[in-house]
C-alpha cells in the first residue's frame, strides 16, 4: 500500500483541478463544468490526432514524456498518506525540487523548438518566474528542515512539534505564494486565457496538441497536487500515518482528502479575489514573499522555534 500511494496523486490530480475550477465558477456565480471535466479533457486529447510543426526536432517529441515521467517520479518520492515508504531513501525534498526542474527545463526547451514567438515568450517568462520562486521555496524548506533536523520529507512530516511555530507560519505563507506562482495561477498567470500578452504556461504549450498536450496537462495537474501535498507534509502533517496499518491509513487518507479540498478552496478564493498582475510587477510580489521567507528564517534563529 505505502509503496503505491503515488497512484493517488496520479489519479486524483485532475479531480483537484476540477474542484478548483468548479469552486471558481461558483465564486463567479456560474454553474461551471463538472468536477470531472479534466478527466474528459484528457481522454479526448489522448484520442485526438496531433499536428506537429516540421521545424521541431526530437526534443519536442520527447519533452512531454520527460515532463510526465519526472512529475511521476516526484510523486513517488512524496509521502502522501503514510511516511513509511521504501522510496523515501531515493531522495529528499531538495531532490524533489530538482526533479521538478527537469520538467521545467525540457518544457522550456520544447517551447523554443517550434521557433514561434509565443513559445519563446512563454518560456522566457516561465524562467523569470522560476528564478524568483526557487530561492524562496528553498528558504522555506530550509526553515522546516532545520527545525526538523533533516531534509527528508518523511522525517519532516513526522515532526508534530513543529506545527504552527511562528517561523513555520511565515514560511507557510511564503510557500503558498510560491505555489501560486509555480502552478501558474492568478495573480501570476492566468490558466484560462490564451491571450498572447499575458500567458506564460499556456504559451509554452501552444504548439502541442493531442496526446502530447494531454501528457503536459496531466503533468501540470499532478505538479499542482504534489505541491499541495508537500505543503501538507511540511506544515500540517497532523493525521498522516506512520506505518502501513489499515486503520491509520484510512484515517490519514480522510485527513489528506480534507486538507486537499481546503487548499483547493484557498486557491480558488485567491484566484477569484485577485486580478492578474503585469509580468513586470511580479518581482515586487515575489520579492515580498521572499522577504517573508527570510523573516521566517530569522525568527527561527532568534527565538529558535
Amino acid at each position, binding site marked *: 500500500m505505502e509503496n503505491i500511494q503515488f497512484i493517488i496523486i496520479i489519479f486524483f490530480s485532475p479531480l483537484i483541478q476540477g474542484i478548483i475550477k468548479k469552486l471558481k465558477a461558483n465564486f463567479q456565480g456560474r454553474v461551471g463544468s463538472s468536477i470531472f471535466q479534466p478527466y474528459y479533457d484528457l481522454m479526448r486529447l489522448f484520442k485526438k*490526432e496531433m499536428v506537429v510543426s516540421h521545424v521541431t526536432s526530437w526534443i519536442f517529441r520527447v519533452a512531454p514524456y520527460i515532463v510526465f515521467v519526472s512529475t511521476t517520479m516526484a510523486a513517488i518520492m512524496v509521502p502522501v498518506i503514510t511516511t513509511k515508504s521504501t522510496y523515501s*531513501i531515493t531522495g529528499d525534498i531538495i531532490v524533489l525540487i530538482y526533479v521538478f526542474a527537469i520538467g521545467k527545463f525540457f518544457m522550456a526547451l520544447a517551447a523554443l523548438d517550434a521557433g514561434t514567438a509565443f513559445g519563446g515568450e512563454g518560456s*522566457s*517568462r516561465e*524562467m523569470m518566474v522560476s*528564478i524568483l520562486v526557487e530561492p524562496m521555496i528553498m528558504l522555506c524548506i530550509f526553515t522546516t528542515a532545520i527545525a526538523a533536523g533533516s531534509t527528508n520529507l518523511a522525517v519532516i512530516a513526522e515532526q508534530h512539534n513543529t506545527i504552527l511555530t511562528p517561523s513555520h507560519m511565515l514560511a507557510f505563507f511564503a510557500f503558498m505564494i510560491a505555489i501560486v506562482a509555480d502552478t501558474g495561477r492568478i495573480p501570476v498567470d492566468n490558466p484560462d486565457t490564451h491571450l498572447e500578452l499575458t500567458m506564460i504556461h499556456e504559451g509554452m504549450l501552444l504548439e502541442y496538441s493531442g496526446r502530447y498536450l494531454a501528457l503536459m496537462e496531466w503533468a501540470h495537474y499532478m505538479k499542482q497536487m504534489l505541491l499541495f501535498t508537500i505543503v501538507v507534509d511540511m506544515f500540517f502533517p497532523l493525521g498522516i500515518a506512520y506505518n502501513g496499518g489499515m486503520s491509520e491509513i484510512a484515517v490519514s487518507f480522510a485527513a489528506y482528502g480534507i486538507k486537499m479540498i481546503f487548499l483547493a478552496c484557498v486557491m480558488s478564493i485567491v484566484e477569484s479575489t485577485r486580478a492578474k498582475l503585469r509580468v513586470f510587477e511580479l518581482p515586487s510580489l515575489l520579492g515580498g514573499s521572499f522577504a517573508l521567507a527570510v523573516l521566517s*528564517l530569522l525568527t527561527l534563529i532568534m527565538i529558535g522555534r
Partner: protein
Amino acid sequence: MTSMYIYYFGLLLFIAGAIIPLIYPQKMKRFAYIFPTVGACAFAAFGMYLLFDHPLDISAVSITPLLGFVFRGDAISGFFILLISILTFSVSVYSMGYTKNMANKGVMGVLFNTFILSMYAVILSGNVITFLISWETMSIISYLLVTFDREEESASAGLLYAIMTHVGTAFILTAFLLLYKYTGHMDFAGIKEATNDIPAGIKTIVFVFAVIGFGTKAGIVPLHTWLPRAHPAAPSNISSLMSGVMIKTGIYGILRIVVDILGVGPEWWGIAIIVIGAMSAVLGILYALTENDMKRFLAYSSIENIGIILLGIGASMVLASNGLHTLSAIAMTAGLYHTLNHTLFKGLLFLGAGSVVHATHSKNMEEMGGLIKLMPYTAFFFLIGSVSICALPLFNGFVSEWLTFQALLFDFKSASAVAKLIAPMSGAALAFTGAMAIACFVKVFGISFLGMPRSQHAENAKETSTSMLAGMGFLSLFCLLTGIFPGHTIKLFSSSVFLLTGADYSSSGMGILSMREISSSISPLSLFIVMISLFIAAVFLVRIFGGKRKITYGNSWDSGIPSLTSRMQYTATAFTNPIRVTFKKIYLSKRHTKVSYALKPYFAKAIEYRDDITPFFEKYIYQPVTDFIHSLAGKVKHLQSGDLHLYLGYILATLILLLIFWS
C-alpha cells in the same frame, strides 16, 4: 617504484609531444596530440596511485644552494592530477580533429603540451620556488595561447589576463615569503610542520593574500574581469583546458595553503569564503545570462561554478573551526565533487562550443539556430553538458549541488549567529543560481540549437569530425557515470578529503549517498532506474490507450501571417529581457530605442533597440585605479623635460640633500 616509472613515462611522452612538432611542424603534427593522449592515461594512473594515499617524493633538483626544484605528490595533488589527466585525454583526442587546418600547428602543439606539463608541475610542486616558477610558467603559456591568433582584441584580453595574474602572483609570493619568514622553511612540508609558530595576525594576512592571489586565477568576483575576456579569445580546445582545469589550480592553491598548511582557522575565514563564493556564483550567472557570445557565456558560468565550489569549501572550513570534523569532511567532499564535475561538464561544453564555432564561423548565438538537425551528435553532447551543469538529477552536477546544500545546512550547527544566517542565505543564493543556470542553458541550447537557422552560416553548418565527437562523447559518459555512481566517485577521493579535514565521509552503497547525521539520502542510481522504467512504461501505456498515433506535419502557428521566417523567432536578447528588467539594479542596464518612420507617427520603417549592461567592476573599480596610476606617471614624466640645465640642477640638488641629511 612502478609509479615512478609511470610518472617518467608520462613526462617523457609530453616532452616528446612538445618537441616533435617543433622539428616537423607539418607531417608529424598528429603526434603532438597522440603523445599527450597516452601521457594523460599514464598520469591518470599516477594520480590514482597518489589517491590511494601514497605520498611520494618524486624528485628534487637544486638550482642554487638556496633554491631547488622539489616535486612531491600526495592525495590532494593526486585528485587534481586525475582531473587534469581526464580532461587532457579527451581534449587531445578532440584536438586531433580540431587543429587539422589551423595556422601554425607546430607552435600550437608545443604550447599545448607545455601548458599541460606546467599545470602538472603546479600541482606537484613541493616548495615555494618550484610552485612560483611553474605557476608563472603556466600563466605565460596560457597568455601566449590566449593571444594565439595575434589579433588586437585577443592581445588586449591577454594583456588584462597577464597583468591580473601577475598581480595575483605578487600576492602569492608575499604570502609565501611571510610563511617562510615565520617558519624558516621554503618547502611546504616544512612550513606545515612549523605552522604553529606563526602568530595569528600573520596567519590572517597570509589567508587574505592567498585568497586574493589564488582567487585571481580562479576568477572569484571581483577579481574575475580577465576571465570572460581571456577564455573566449583562446582556441576552443585551450579554452576548455583553461576553464576546465587551469582555474582549478587556483582552487588547489587555496586548499593547499589555507586548508592544508594554515589548518583550521577562525570561523570568519570560512564565512568569508562562503560569502565570496555566493557572490561569485550569483554575479557570475547573472552576467552569463546576458551574454550572447557563446564562449564568453561559458566563461561567466565558470565564475559561477567556482563560486559553488567555494561554497562547499567555505562550509567545510566553518564546520572545521567548530570542531565538527565529520560534517566538515562532507562539506569538503561537496566542494571537491563539484570541482570534478565542473571539470567534466565545462570541458565538454567548451568543446561543444568549439565545434559549433568551428562549424558556423561565429560565436554569436543570434547567428545560429536549428543546429540540432545539422549537427545532431554535437547537439546531443551539448545537451548532456547543459543538463549536467544545470544540476538536473541523473547527472553529476546534481549530486555535488545536493551535497553543497546539505553542507550549507550543516553550518546551522555552528556556534555563531552570523554563520547561522549566512549559510542558509547562501543556500538560497545557490538555489537562485540553479534556477538562473536553467534559464541560461535553456537560452543557449534553445536559441542556438533549436528553431530555425538564423543565418547563412548556420544553414550550411556540418557535423564535426569523429575525433572531436569522440572527445566530447568521452566526457559526456563521465558526466553520466559520476552522476549515477556518487558512492564510487566519493570513495575515489575520500583520501584527499581525509588529508584536508582529518575526517572521512564514508557514503554507503554504490548508487546511494546517505547521511546518517540527518537521516537523509539520495540514490541517483535508483532514480535512474525508476525514471527509465517509468519512461518506457509511459510510452507503452500511451501507445495502448491512445491507439495508433496520427500525426500531421505542418508549419508552426504563425497567427495567420503567410509564412514564419527565422527572423520572427524569439531572439536571445528578447529571451533574457524579463530577467534583465527584473535585475536592472544590478545590471545598470541602459536601453536605447531608435525608431525611424516612413510617415510619422504611423508607419514605422525600422525600430532599432539596444540594451547595454554596465560592467560594474570594470567601470567603477578597475578604471579609476588605472586612470589614477596613469595620471601619476604622466606627472612624473615632466622630470625628463629635456633641458640640460635642469638635469644639472638635479645633480646639485641631490648632492645638497645628501650633504644635509647624511653627513
